[in-house]
């Protein structure tokens, strides 16, 4: 039945009212059942509870027919019995309104709790991301330093240069050692030559001795010759002196050559020891440094690999923080959804209040001892207003501002 039908002819309630005395309790229950059905359709738990409670109160009263709360304004037995129904309904409404208040407060609490938690999480993730970024920059910087260096030092080049320098040093040392060995051989030659010189000096000594012996014989022969041999005696004496001096020189030379021979032998030993020692030391050093350089190269490669990994971890961390940033936006969606639900709740509470008013007005009309056509018309108008309001809810609140069903990132469209 439409509203216009009701306006053109006496409404359902008016027509029913004309026969109310015939079956008033049946009609009361029917009317309240109508309200319950309407309330249930409007998906308001509060409404359903309130109306159902009213109905329950009426039914209870119908069965007992004993007023729990006799009203002073009761017109007769039946009318007086309706008063506790009204007071019960009002009491239920009060409780319902209290529940609405609590529901609103709890929804607000949800919003503020989520907001506070998300603020904290965002701060944490922001800090994590900044630190990951800083770590990545450090890793990149260190990789560059390892490769080329802040001041152009290439570690690989450094290792190679050092290795090459060391090779040159070792080669030179080996050459020096070979030269020293040749010197040792030369020293041996010198020793041999000195030996020859000493042999020759022996011959000179022999010659000096024989000369001395000849000079002595010549002096004897000169003495035998007498006066005529005097001059020859002088010559023989000089020859003898010469032979003695020759013997002394020879001895001095032998002494000197002997010392030279000792020095050369000592030098020969020293050069030999030096040559042998340098060669071993250089070869061992070369081996040790080559091993050290190899280790350094391995370490360098490991450091580089680790730095690359650190960079990768930081990049991965940044990506994951990005995912967290996407997911954390659920707070914005939840807040909007809760806000929209609160709007719905407010509208439903308003509708509920209107329904309560219809219910109470109906009870008051039924309470009258005589038919009250105006009262019945007023109830009908109120019911029409409720119907209109409930229909408007669908269009006013039908659009949900949050269309997302999950937290995966939304579409991007450039016009």
């Amino acid at each position, binding site marked *: 039945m439409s509203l216009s039908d009701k306006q053109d002819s006496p409404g359902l309630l008016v027509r029913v009212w004309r026969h109310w005395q015939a079956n008033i309790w049946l009609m009361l229950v029917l009317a309240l059942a109508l309200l319950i059905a309407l309330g249930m359709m409007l998906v308001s738990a509060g409404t359903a509870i309130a109306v159902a409670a009213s109905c329950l109160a009426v039914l209870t009263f119908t069965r007992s027919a004993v007023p729990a709360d006799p009203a002073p304004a009761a017109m007769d037995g039946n009318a007086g019995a309706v008063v506790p129904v009204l007071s019960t309904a009002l009491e239920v409404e009060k409780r319902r309104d209290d529940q609405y208040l609590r529901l609103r407060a709890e929804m607000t609490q949800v919003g503020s709790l989520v907001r506070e938690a998300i603020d904290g999480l*965002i701060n944490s993730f922001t800090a994590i991301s900044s630190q990951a970024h800083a770590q990545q920059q450090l890793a990149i910087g260190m990789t560059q330093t390892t490769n080329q260096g802040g001041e152009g030092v290439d570690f690989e080049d450094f290792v190679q240069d050092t290795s090459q320098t060391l090779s040159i040093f070792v080669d030179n040392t080996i050459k020096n050692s070979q030269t020293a060995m040749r010197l040792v051989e030369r020293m041996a030659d010198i020793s041999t030559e000195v030996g020859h010189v000493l042999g020759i000096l022996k011959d000179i000594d022999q010659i000096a001795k024989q000369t001395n012996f000849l000079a002595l014989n010549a002096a004897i022969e000169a003495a035998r010759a007498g006066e005529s041999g005097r001059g020859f005696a002088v010559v023989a004496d000089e020859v003898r002196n010469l032979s003695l001096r020759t013997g002394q020189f020879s001895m001095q030379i032998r002494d000197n050559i002997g010392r030279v021979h000792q020095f050369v032998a000592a030098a020969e030993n020293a050069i030999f020891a030096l040559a042998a020692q340098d060669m071993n030391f250089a070869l061992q050093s070369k081996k040790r440094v080559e091993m050290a350089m190899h280790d350094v190269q391995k370490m360098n490669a490991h450091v580089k690999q680790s730095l690359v990994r650190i960079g990768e971890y930081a990049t991965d961390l940044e990506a994951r923080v990005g995912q967290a940033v996407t997911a954390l*936006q659920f707070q914005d*969606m939840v807040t909007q959804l809760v806000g929209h639900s609160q709007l719905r709740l407010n509208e439903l509470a308003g509708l509920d209040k209107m329904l309560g008013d219809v219910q109470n007005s109906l009870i008051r009309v039924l309470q009258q001892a005589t038919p009250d056509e105006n009262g019945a018309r007023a109830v009908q108008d109120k019911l029409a207003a409720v119907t209109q309001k409930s229909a408007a809810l669908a269009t006013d609140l039908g659009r949900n501002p949050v*269309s*997302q069903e999950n937290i995966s*990132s939304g*579409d*991007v469209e450039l*016009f």
Partner: protein
Amino acid sequence: MAKTVLTVDDSASIRQMVAFTLKSAGYDVIEAADGNAGLAQAKNNAVSLVLTDQNMPGMDGLTLIKSLRALPNYKATPILMLTTESSDTMKSQGRAAGATGWLVKPFDPQKLLEVVRKVIG
């Protein structure tokens, strides 16, 4: 000199996340909590890009876009809508109001950066 992006959203967390994402890429970011505050910020600063939400108390995103397009300085400035709204009706309203693009929340920081780089470099 870094380009300035204005983010307009009634959700502080969204503003914070947009600012964090764009600042890490070298942009300057200024914030406003609704259309009115966004309009005032846009008038007082040289803004290269505006990122605005749709549903906000005070002035909503569509009204902000229309108001900005009425200003001589913002006739060609890129304005991106960043909102939970994703219906074709809303998008066509945005296009009609002068929006440069439509991003549906939640945004992926990398995607947001790609779009921002695309429209303002």
